[in-house]
């Protein structure tokens, strides 16, 4: 680094930071304000006294526990499967001593689902899983099966179907991140282990996994937090239905804000989501820093 050059460094960063302050920090403060003060329909704000009425309304909602649980199943399930499948794909690509051009090509092919517009992924799986036009359903009918295949219309299956679609779409990203963490491990460590007689599985469990553990934890935290607030896929696939069986916090917030126009209550739900995100982040970051 050169000598400290306060002025130039700050001038260069200033435009971006002004943009953030105007459009991220101010709105965040504003949503906090709304969650306490906005009452009733629309964005009418009464600033008479701080009030927990919006939070109490959220708490008293009969579906509060159900939506929270569904969000945890969705985000937790997706996070675990992303990490597991992403790890397996990355390991396969990293471990097989094949032609590097071939391996790179395969990595690129695996990345494709992540590069597809989420809206199109949602549309694609709505068609694939449709009981009327879906190819799986058409195939089942053609062999005379009595099963009606349409998981998105069935309360028992809708949440699972959306979760697995999410897994299909985002696993490639985690594969890519895990792979780059694996490739950053010093090959000398493996060579030393081989000299000491370590076999393949021993190298995986005693070198690879410990060396990428922090990456996995940070990725998992980031994943859980962003998936819990992820809107596009669930909204386009099921709109939280049928009978709210796939409703998660993000679709609940959207419904409350933009269909019922209760911005105060919607902000309160959102703040609960954000608080959970912050708590999860702190727990994971502390676990990492402990070492």
């Amino acid at each position, binding site marked *: 680094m050169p000598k400290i050059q306060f002025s130039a460094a700050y001038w260069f960063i200033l435009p*971006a930071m002004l943009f*953030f302050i105007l459009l991220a920090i101010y709105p965040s403060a504003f949503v906090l304000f*709304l969650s306490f003060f906005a009452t009733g329909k629309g964005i009418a704000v009464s600033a008479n006294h701080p009030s927990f009425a919006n939070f109490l309304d959220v708490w008293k909602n009969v579906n509060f526990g159900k939506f929270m649980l569904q969000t945890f199943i969705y985000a937790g399930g997706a996070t675990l499967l992303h990490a597991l499948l992403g790890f397996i794909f990355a390991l396969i690509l990293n471990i097989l001593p*094949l032609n590097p051009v071939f391996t790179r090509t395969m990595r690129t092919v695996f990345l*494709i*689902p992540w590069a597809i517009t989420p809206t199109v992924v949602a549309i*694609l799986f709505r068609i694939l899983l449709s009981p009327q036009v879906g190819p799986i359903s058409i195939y089942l009918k053609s062999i005379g099966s009595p099963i009606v295949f349409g998981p998105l219309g069935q309360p028992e299956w809708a949440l699972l179907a959306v979760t697995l679609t999410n897994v299909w779409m985002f696993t490639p990203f985690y594969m890519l991140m895990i792979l780059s963490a694996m490739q950053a491990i010093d090959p000398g460590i493996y060579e030393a282990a081989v000299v000491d007689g370590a076999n393949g599985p021993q190298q995986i469990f005693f070198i690879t996994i410990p060396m990428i553990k922090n990456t996995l934890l940070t990725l998992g935290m*980031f994943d859980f937090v962003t998936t819990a607030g992820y809107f596009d896929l669930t909204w386009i696939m099921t709109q939280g239905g049928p009978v709210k069986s796939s409703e998660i916090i993000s679709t609940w917030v959207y419904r409350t804000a933009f269909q019922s126009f209760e911005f105060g209550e919607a902000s309160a739900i959102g703040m609960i989501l954000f608080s959970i995100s912050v708590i999860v982040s702190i727990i994971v970051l502390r676990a990492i820093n402990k070492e």
Partner: protein
Amino acid sequence: MLIIRMPRWLKPLSYIGLTLLAIIYISPYLWMIMSSFRPSTEPFALGIFPHSWSLNNYARVLQDPELMSSFFNSFKVAATAATLALVLGVPAGYSFARFQFRGRDLLMSFLMVVPTFPGILLAITLFVMVVRFGMYDSHYPLIIANTLINLPFSIWNLRTVFEATSREIEESAMVEGCNRLQALIKVVLPIALPGLAATFAFVYILSWNEYLFATTFISTNEKRLITTTMASAIGQFNVDYATLIPAAILSTLPLILLFIFIQRYIIKGLAMGSTKG
């Protein structure tokens, strides 16, 4: 890289196995591409390949004024947002790459935290602001929102791009009388062009893909983006699959190819943004 010994006969098998696994993994999308070529009379017939190949569906998309205006709107919003993310991101990324200054680490961790703020909350606050400023149903708030959510990545990635460029050329330019800004524009940016283009392209892709803000801020059909137009098409009672499927391919395939082309320039920036604590 792990060190394992593989029996000779296993090698061809692992080539075949890996290829099959990859094809199966992306088969839903391959199915969609195939279906876009099926004649509109039998869009979902059995079989992997269409019985007869037809380009009629694509012709119908190109003749559909609503879809074409949606494509154009998406292009306009994504290109402007990507330009803004570059204009704001270049100086900031350069500063993080070259200078050591008070608050640097704090600002960088701030950039890491921004993406964990739930988009749906941002949608509410921006919506309230947009309505107050009379900008509802216009593309400006969409451009601003897309710039905002992608600016952290843009800064992260540009920082790694600038860190990879040599310091000496720019210092010699400064000896010859350029100031810092001129050196950045005249010397550094041309060298960093591939990285800049890749950052622009990735923000363009992410903005094109964006759905939440597009559905929140726009109400008129002519102003809709391609994501919202397609999402509302699948929600109709009678879905026109023969137009929807090729439209979906047209809006994704070019970007997938673009993504494949730029991926090596963005991996470092992505890894930094999401894994460094």
